[in-house]
């Protein structure tokens, strides 16, 4: 019963696709051409190579955002609950701080923070 339903369901899904494929292969007028087969379809011809490099400099903003914004968000509860924290939590937080300070140093070296 279940197997029958499963087979029926799969057939119900696949048959129309198969029929459409068959229709396209057998009956549709097939007229390929240079323009028709072109990859780009906006009416314009593509120019140059698609393998070009984009300057992905946005990561610097992401780092600075993490350092100044996310850090502050986590530092506030850290400061509030500081006296009651166990040693493990304190070390984990310091590692977190270290990582972000690392980011800050990186951004400084890149010259992001110097006023142009």
């Amino acid at each position: 019963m279940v197997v029958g339903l499963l087979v029926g369901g799969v057939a119900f899904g696949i048959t129309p696709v198969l029929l459409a494929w068959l229709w396209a292969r057998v009956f549709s007028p097939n007229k390929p051409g240079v323009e028709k087969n072109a990859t780009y379809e906006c009416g314009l011809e593509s120019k140059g190579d698609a393998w070009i490099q984009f300057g992905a400099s946005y990561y610097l903003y992401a780092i600075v955002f993490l350092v100044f914004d996310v850090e502050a968000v986590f530092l506030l509860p850290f400061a509030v609950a500081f006296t009651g924290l166990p040693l493990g939590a304190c070390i984990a937080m310091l590692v977190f701080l270290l990582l972000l300070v690392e980011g800050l140093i990186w951004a400084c070296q890149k010259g992001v923070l110097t006023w142009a």
Partner: protein
Amino acid sequence: MAEDLKELKIELSKNGIFTTTLEELYNWGRKNSVWPLTFGLACCAIEMIATTMARYDLARFGAEVFRPSPRQADLIIVSGTVTKKMAPQVVRLYNQMPEPKYVIAMGACAISGGPFRDGYNVLKGIDRYIPVDVHIPGCPPRPEALIHAFMTLQQKIEAQSLSGASRPRHLRAGLPSEFPVPAFGEHGLEPAQNTEVFLAEQGNPLKVIQ
């Protein structure tokens, strides 16, 4: 023979029996599922948009599915002034559409250049480069006119025979599906027009274009 069959069909329909042919059925399906290309050039495009909206409702004719890709479109409505800068793109879009494909030249500009005919940069009719099936006069034509053009196109599709010598261009293996794209020369587009477009029009006695 065909006449006999037609009479027989009418006779049967009088007695409540509906008969049809594969060709009729096929064309009936085709004419009621013409998908236009999402493509507008100038003020006529606003009328075209109005035609698709609730008040005029092109969906009644099965043509509400405006496709953003020429690969999925059957009809290109050249709605507006075709500048010489734009003409190669229009031809290229037409070339990229799959067969069978149809063209409606909407408005005076698409037909002949319209009020801008004497402009240095205006193409004097898109039928210089691609075969137009229906021309609609007007500046711009009202949505009713576009609907009329659409119905005219449907009649044309319905009347196309799928076999025999008078079958449409897309069913003739020897005829190309693409038309040459004009290029910019020293004095506007070159060539200034493609005279073979008219020979390639559907229904014409076969004159092979290369």
